[in-house]
């Protein structure tokens, strides 16, 4: 009975647009092989993390099929869409905001719920501020342990500026 009184999710049916998907692919990059990302974690395709730590010699440069890349991308996008849909239920996002939020959640799945939640009360400046804080990366060594202090990543700084832009415009 309790669910009968639940308010509708205002972003429950929204999906990532084609333009949003292109933007996400541009943000993440596209590689048809296993490679070490800037934090030294083994990655492939559209920023799909294979595992923490450097790729093994066998993995590095090993080709990955387009089919596997697209499956991983679709899974990551769906996960990110769900994070956004569950984080912002009470305020309808514009398509640009939703796309930017999905790009952010694809990159920072664990932090997106909290970062996006001010949108529920219309505090879009709060969302932009939160997004722009996620600019530090933690490189790993070959054993998968964090090596050295957190590093401010200029690429992340630019990406966050772009992702937060739709939340900084006047409604």
């Amino acid at each position, binding site marked *: 009975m309790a669910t009968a009184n639940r308010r509708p999710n205002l972003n429950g049916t929204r999906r990532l647009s084609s333009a949003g998907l292109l933007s996400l692919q541009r943000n993440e990059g596209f590689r048809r092989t296993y490679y070490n990302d800037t*934090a030294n974690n083994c990655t492939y395709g559209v920023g799909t993390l294979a595992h923490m730590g450097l790729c093994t010699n066998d993995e590095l440069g090993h080709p990955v099929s387009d089919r596997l890349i697209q499956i991983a991308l679709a899974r990551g996008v769906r*996960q990110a869409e769900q994070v956004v849909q*569950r984080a912002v239920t009470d305020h309808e996002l514009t398509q640009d905001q939703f796309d930017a939020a999905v790009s952010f959640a694809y990159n920072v799945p664990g932090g997106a719920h909290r970062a996006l939640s001010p949108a529920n009360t219309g505090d879009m400046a709060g969302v932009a501020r939160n997004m722009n804080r996620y600019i530090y990366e933690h490189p790993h060594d070959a054993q998968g342990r964090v090596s050295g202090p957190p590093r401010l990543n200029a690429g992340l700084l630019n990406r966050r500026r772009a992702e937060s832009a739709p939340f900084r415009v006047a409604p």
Partner: protein
Amino acid sequence: MRRGLLALCMVAAAAGANAASEPFSFYGTWKVDKLVGYSEISVGEDQLRGLIGKQIVIGKNSLKVGDDDCKADNMRAATRATAPILLREYKAGVKDAGVPARTLVLDADPCGYVFRAGREIVFSQDGGFYRASRVKP
């Protein structure tokens, strides 16, 4: 006197055994003791360290971490392998989070996951992993 001491020792041992065999529960109030690791991407170190000393309150339908009160739709606890959860949800590994490879995990959807680490818990916020100890049930 000797018999009294023996009785006291037996009571203390029994109490210890009870404490050890009590089923672990995530519910209650916890205190954030330390930052133990990071996801691949996080906020700045100063902001992360600001959570140390704050309280976590885990209720039947909520996970409150510091001033962030998150309503959970569905709380489920089960013993699970941690590496797949950490990789998928946090872009992190077992060493980053400082949790066992297999442990009791509370899925506080959509507020995140809480991991059992001995008598303590590990959770993530803003790209940091924290260890917390129990204040009260």
